[in-house]
């Protein structure tokens, strides 16, 4: 948040503040939760972040968020078929959790509205820093979501798919998950919608217990009318592994924040991201990773395809704390720029306070490799198809690394879907 009040509120800021007054009586929460909500709206009253706020430099939210739609819920009436066959689906429709939920062995699911009402989630509603606009927006308005509690040692046979679907209007959702010690899970976070202008905020909070292994896939396919402001926060315990896969393939104004901390020695984090950018859109992926204890590892690979007038941003910040010796962190961001009007901004940041670490980062922006194109064409594949193959290959490489055939196939099907409409 900006510390200074803005000289004049924007339409969007005014609309949010007014909406808060109108919605307040409808929002669930005990006293502690309501205090957090008040703090959050105070932060918004100070103004949405502008390019003068460093972490928002490439995404001037105050300027880009021109309008805020009314609150009324749209008309999404049913969940989507999961991207991984056999998944247990937990849908949030138009911002609200559902009563009829699948039984999953080893997993307790609670509606978040209940946890807001009883106040048990209040501590988690705090912002993570001074510029946490998405956290503030969500804390002010969050009405529902799920808390998924996976028991210690549970090895889930089927993936869980959390769906956050809306059809225009506003929705503010939180998805919380605790994965117990030694447990194994694949969790899909599906962000999608249809129809009119939408403002969706979604905050996911994950705690990965010691020795647990989690693959979390965020598949964002909002319509080109939606503003999607999302946050994924995770703590990774001792000898635990988290693979976070983020695919952005939609939305008009998108910011996906990834805030991860290694909290136990031997923790490993992998971030794999694909941004498929088209049209006149803005998509920002911003990561803050804290290597907070010794002997933890991470790799981050982001691949971007930019077409049309799309603008993309990747900010990757790795903080290696003073005691976090033997940290090993590698980050790469590669962009395939396919149009003269598209752009992509990459900002890697390494803040290293330990002296015995291996950290590196790299960024590239390229066009299609002409040698590769020639090779494919020399086998009779026409130029358009050959380009399509190469663009898909550029991002598919990140998917194929996932090492799980069902996951790879499901994500490649999402890719094919995007290329068939944007290729």
């Amino acid at each position, binding site marked *: 948040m900006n510390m200074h009040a803005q000289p004049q509120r924007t339409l969007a800021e005014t609309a949010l503040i007014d909406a808060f007054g109108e919605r307040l009586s409808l929002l669930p929460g005990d006293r502690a939760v309501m205090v957090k909500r008040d703090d959050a709206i105070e932060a918004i009253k100070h103004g949405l972040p502008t390019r003068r706020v460093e972490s928002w430099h490439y995404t001037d939210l105050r300027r880009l968020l021109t309008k805020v739609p009314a609150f009324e819920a749209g008309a999404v009436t049913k969940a989507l078929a999961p991207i991984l066959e056999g998944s247990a689906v937990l849908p949030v429709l138009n911002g609200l959790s559902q009563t009829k939920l699948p039984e999953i062995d080893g997993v307790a699911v609670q509606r978040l509205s209940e946890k807001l009402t009883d106040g048990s989630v209040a501590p988690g509603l705090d912002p993570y820093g001074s510029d946490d606009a998405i956290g503030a927006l969500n804390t002010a308005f969050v009405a529902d979501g799920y808390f998924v509690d996976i028991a210690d040692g549970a090895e889930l046979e089927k993936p869980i798919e959390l769906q956050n679907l809306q059809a225009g209007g506003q929705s503010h959702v939180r998805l919380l998950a605790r994965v117990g010690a030694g447990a194994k899970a694949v969790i899909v976070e599906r962000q999608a919608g249809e129809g009119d202008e939408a403002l969706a905020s979604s905050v996911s909070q994950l705690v990965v217990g010691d020795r647990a292994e989690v693959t979390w896939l965020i598949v964002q396919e909002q319509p080109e009318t939606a503003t999607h402001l999302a946050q994924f926060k995770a703590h990774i315990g001792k000898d635990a592994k988290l693979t976070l896969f983020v695919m952005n393939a939609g939305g008009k104004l998108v910011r996906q924040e990834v805030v991860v901390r290694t909290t136990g020695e031997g923790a490993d984090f992998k971030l794999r991201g694909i941004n498929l950018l088209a049209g006149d859109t803005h998509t920002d992926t911003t990561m803050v990773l804290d290597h907070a204890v010794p002997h933890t590892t991470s790799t981050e690979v982001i691949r971007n395809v930019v077409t049309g007038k799309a603008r993309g941003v990747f900010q990757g910040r790795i903080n290696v704390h003073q005691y976090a010796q033997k940290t090993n962190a590698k980050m790469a961001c590669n962009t395939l720029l396919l149009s003269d009007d598209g752009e992509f901004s990459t900002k890697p940041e390494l803040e290293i306070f330990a002296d015995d670490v291996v950290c590196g980062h790299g960024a590239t922006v390229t066009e299609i490799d*002409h*040698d*590769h194109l*020639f*090779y*494919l*064409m*020399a*086998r*009779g*594949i*026409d*130029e358009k*198809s*050959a380009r399509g*193959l*190469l663009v*898909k*290959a*550029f*991002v*598919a*490489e990140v998917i*194929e690394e996932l090492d799980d055939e069902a996951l790879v196939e499901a994500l490649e099907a999402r890719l094919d879907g995007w290329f068939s409409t944007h290729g």
Partner: protein
Amino acid sequence: MLEIKNLHARIVDDGTEIIRGLNLTVKAGEVAAIMGPNGSGKSTLSYILAGREDYEVTEGDILYNGQSILEMDPAERATAGIFLAFQYPMEIPGVATMEFLKVAMNEQRKARGEEPLKVPEFLKRVKEAAASLSMDMNMLKRPLNVGFSGGEKKRAEILQMKLLEPKLCVLDETDSGLDIDALKIVSDGVNALRSPDRAIVVITHYQRLLEHIVPDTVHVLYRGQVIKSGDKSLALDLEANGYAGVIGQAA
């Protein structure tokens, strides 16, 4: 089948002329060997035949079955039946080899007005071709040429050639990087493709390959021109006496 007439070509980037008035005719059913010292323009010639955009033809023409191919892009040339086996096949991460083979075969079929291959038929053809080249099918599960050894890449080129059934095959230094066993396997693969309606142009530095793929004609390329043509005995002569003699006669 192939008629190259007074061909002049240069590198687009810096204008360096590489091919300087080259004439060559290869008939259907013929295996023609093109030999020459380093820098004589052998690889450039192969790229120009395949339609690489880095080279520009400034004079002369290339006729394939009587038609000029200069205005055709690489894909059009390939679907017309011209195949280049690359000296250095490109590694293309992310493109699955099987997927690539299927797309290439079906694009060529489409261009010829044929139905796409059914999956079982496609697999059968790939398996047969791979077996004939002693290639492990597991290799084909990898991305195209990625992590293949030099010899494996060359085998993969010949595998593609077998599957695509071109009419004019151009082999650019296919022997380089091959040990003697692989050389025999690859040569057998090429020999199996010899047929009265197909022409094969073998570009090589050494006579060694020509012991396995016996040419009908041999042409010596020097400074972008064919300076001498003959039968297979010319290759033996070059092996025994080097290029100096031939170059001296031409000069």
